[in-house]
């Protein structure tokens, strides 16, 4: 019988790294959030402030607007990626030449550094340089200037995220579809069910576990998007694309109001977890319909 002590010795370095660089900052941020602490203020030390920082947050318009923008962004990217990813996965279920090659190329965006994704989209969308503003103007007469129009900047970040992350959704849903038994769909077709009925009553319930995993992973990643958006828009114009990660990093962090920044960080983490929790309850805990 192997001694568990040896096992713990093998695990010790991993636990140490994660405890110091993963768990300690979490405790620290929770601690600092209860203090007033600005090293460059008149009183540079830590002053206990109770929940004052959190009270301030509830009335902080910039913070609330940033949270709202993040939620809108997340909603649109996750929804679009699910729909497009599902359709593409269904296409991959068919047989056609060069499927392996198409699949490999489709995987490429997942490996590209987010900061390089932001750079490439910046080059595509810069007026006077990129093809997107040029052809939008020429073919549709759209005046596309991301630096001037808030909704254009927002939509561009959404499109960029769709480009970047749809492949992940396609490939996970493809894995789910490939693992599904064929018989229920075939017998439903024999019984004369139409495509929509098959999708709603058979494919969807059977795909549910994979679908949920995909939704949660995309949700968590979309909520913390920073790099690409920073590179593409810098959070602007104004505050139009200043999602919460950007807000904490670019606005709150440089103000050296550490207690307040810590409280905002912790509240953001809490909101992320709560959102996932509510979705989990809404999607999983509810009785599956039709089955």
């Amino acid at each position: 019988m192997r001694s568990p002590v040896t096992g713990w010795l093998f695990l010790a370095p991993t636990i140490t790294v994660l405890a110091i660089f993963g768990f300690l900052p979490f405790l620290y941020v929770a601690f600092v959030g209860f203090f007033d602490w600005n090293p460059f203020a008149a009183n540079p030390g830590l002053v206990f402030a109770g929940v004052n920082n959190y009270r301030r947050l509830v009335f902080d318009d910039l913070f609330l607007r940033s949270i709202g923008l993040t939620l809108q962004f997340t909603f649109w990217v996750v929804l679009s990626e699910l729909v497009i990813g599902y359709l593409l996965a269904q296409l991959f279920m068919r047989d056609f030449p060069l499927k392996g090659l198409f699949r490999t190329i489709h995987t490429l965006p997942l490996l590209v550094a987010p900061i390089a994704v932001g750079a490439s989209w910046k080059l595509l969308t810069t007026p006077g340089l990129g093809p997107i503003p040029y052809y939008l103007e020429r073919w549709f007469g759209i005046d596309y200037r991301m630096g001037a129009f808030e909704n254009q900047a927002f939509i561009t970040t959404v499109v960029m995220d769709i480009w970047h992350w749809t492949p992940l959704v396609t490939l996970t849903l493809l894995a789910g579809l490939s693992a599904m038994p064929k018989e229920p769909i075939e017998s439903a077709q024999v019984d004369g069910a139409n495509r929509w009925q098959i999708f709603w009553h058979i494919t969807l319930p059977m795909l549910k576990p994979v679908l949920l995993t995909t939704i949660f992973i995309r949700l968590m990643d979309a909520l913390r998007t920073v790099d690409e958006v920073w590179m593409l828009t810098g959070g602007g114009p104004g505050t139009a694309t200043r999602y919460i990660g950007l807000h904490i990093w670019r606005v709150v962090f440089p103000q050296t109001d550490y207690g307040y920044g810590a409280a905002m960080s912790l509240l953001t983490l809490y909101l992320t977890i709560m959102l996932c929790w509510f979705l989990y309850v809404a999607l999983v805990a509810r009785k599956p319909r039709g089955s």
Partner: protein
Amino acid sequence: MKKKSSLLPLLIWCGMTIITLLPIWWLFVVSMRTRVQLFGRPSMLLNGFYWGNYIEVLENEEFRFYMWNSIIVATSNCLLVTILALLATFALSRYKLAAEDSLFFWLITNRMAPAAVFLLPLFLIYTQWFNLFDTRIGLILLYGVFNLPFAIWLMKGIMDGIPKELDEAAMIDGASTFQVLTKVIIPLAKPGLAVTAILTWMFAWNEYLFAATLTSVEARTITTGLAEFVSVTGTNWGELAALSMLTLAPALVFLGFVQRHIVAGLTFGAVKE
């Protein structure tokens, strides 16, 4: 069930491939142009090979230093993470440990934390307690936070797939635990170790937010160099594109090796292919 034609998926996928490659192709086209060629109607075609932008970037000592930092940080982190994950999954897979499942769950949740939330405490800890601010070792250890959970997920499946009878047989033959690991486990886990190493290397290479916040001069990486490039030089698009191409070059190189595994990796093994 009537046989569906393969023409429609083929056409749609050709279109999708163009969309997927378009931003990267455009980067490449811009990186191959002189300043003068960038004005006027944006043509998507290559005008010819002009290497001036790449030469400018590679001759810039600062960028060479950034690239060198990135290579050191990514390589050290990938070695560290792969070795630690090998040991950790060996323990999780072969030993009966108390609270094993909760421990595994805790290890994994580290990856889900939003980076921006941890910037402030990490910055304070690095500057005030550890003296790790602006050091490569600081980044190497920190990247373990998102790479270790990922590597452990990937390696756990591989480790569980190696039959326990093999290392038991080796033990009966008198092999020590260390010998079991080096003579039995590592040779069998080699392909999995390679994938883990490549993907963790890629993630460390791609990381931006921590590197931008926790370094200032000495440990700047290529991604921070790319981001600074925009704010400092403004409109030198050719060089920006060349530097972007250099940043994403490893992705192009490794794509073929890891594309089968990246989905299992990114979904924490929840979705297997």
